[in-house]
């Protein structure tokens, strides 16, 4: 039997996958990484893209919009984001929350955030890519 590594993919709202696989591919911030069993410890950020798992018999694919990847020699954890993230976007949300507190009654005008649009665009592109890949493999 070939060597396997335990993988958990979770998002804040649900558990997505848990099981043993032979190889994990993930879209790390600095390029795609492939994790084989007994990989050295690693933490990295993920960008929008797909996480692929090679279970030996089949290849599974999951879309992530970003998140964190932690690797221990026998366990890989993918903490997937459910929200679209960008630093200035988070900042904007913080400001919105603050504003809401300041004028709890006055309604605020909704103006479109460029950073948010861009992050959404990146996510949509990655989603499309994942879909086209899936189509090809079928």
């Amino acid at each position, binding site marked *: 039997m070939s060597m396997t590594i335990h993988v958990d993919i979770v*998002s804040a*709202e*649900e*558990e997505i996958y848990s099981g043993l696989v032979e190889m994990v591919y993930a879209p*790390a911030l600095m390029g795609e990484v492939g994790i084989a069993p007994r990989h050295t410890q690693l933490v990295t950020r993920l960008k929008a893209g797909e996480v692929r798992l090679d279970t030996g018999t089949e290849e599974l694919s999951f879309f992530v919009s970003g998140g*964190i990847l*932690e690797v221990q020699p026998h366990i890989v954890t993918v903490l997937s*984001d459910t929200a679209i993230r960008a630093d200035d976007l988070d900042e904007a949300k913080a400001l919105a929350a603050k504003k809401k*507190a300041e004028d709890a009654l006055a309604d605020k005008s909704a103006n479109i955030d460029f950073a948010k649009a861009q992050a959404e665009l990146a996510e949509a592109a990655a989603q499309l890519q994942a879909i086209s890949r899936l189509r090809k493999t079928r």
Partner: protein
Amino acid sequence: MAVGKEIKTKIASVQSTQKITRAMEMVAASKMRKTQERVLAARPYAKKMAQVIRHLAQARSEYKHPYLAERDVKRVGVLLVSSDRGLCGGLNSNLFRKFVKQLKVWDDEGIEVVMASIGSKGEGFLGRLGGNVNGSVTHLGESPSLEDIIGVVKGMLNEYDEGNIDRFYIAHNDYVNTMTQSPEIMQLLPVVAEELDDQLTHHWDYIYEPDAQDVLDQLLIRYIESLVYQGVLENNACEQAARMVAMKSASDNAGELIDELQLIYNKARQASITQELSEIVAGAAAV
């Protein structure tokens, strides 16, 4: 039969109130089940996150993240999680009471407090309380998403980064069971490391990509957010459970009230019949 009619209308009005409370009770019961499921669904993430943080605490890293370091406490931040709606018994007021008690303790120690709230009851409460309010978010609904709470958490983390607060707490209701919800105040920052993994006692460190600071920043922010999210979900489950219990007792009370009114009505009816009878008999005797 003027008296009887009045009582009849009263009974009808109590009955319609009872119908409403009973409907609310049933709605809360079904929502409670869903909110409990949501708490359970979010648990793997929190568990995994805690595991990663535990590993991280054991890594012999050269870089020490400020979220992991204790500092002298001069000011603290508290995030108050409450429900959006009322009619859920003493749920919010119990939490607020505990919160105010803690504020008093901090005040006695000369510690200033920066506050933020999730939920409109908390927003209203902090508004009445006054003081330094940093952020607020309301109307997350029954299925809140993590995205909704990012802003208010970020506001607090900014305060922490700038050194305006030295500790960060969350106040929310902890779901024990349907009958019991306990208000809790929990420390989020600096991160409190729990029990350690024995397998990792040797000297090791992660490879950080792109660099330690960036990754740890992102990781710890998500950790805090996941804790807050978990708190919000728990509070939601508490809200539905508390509402169900409150509405059940309201329905029961309405039932008792109806019984009493019915008794009074019957007595009044009987009395008027007796009176009529005796009038007829007296009239017949007179003729």
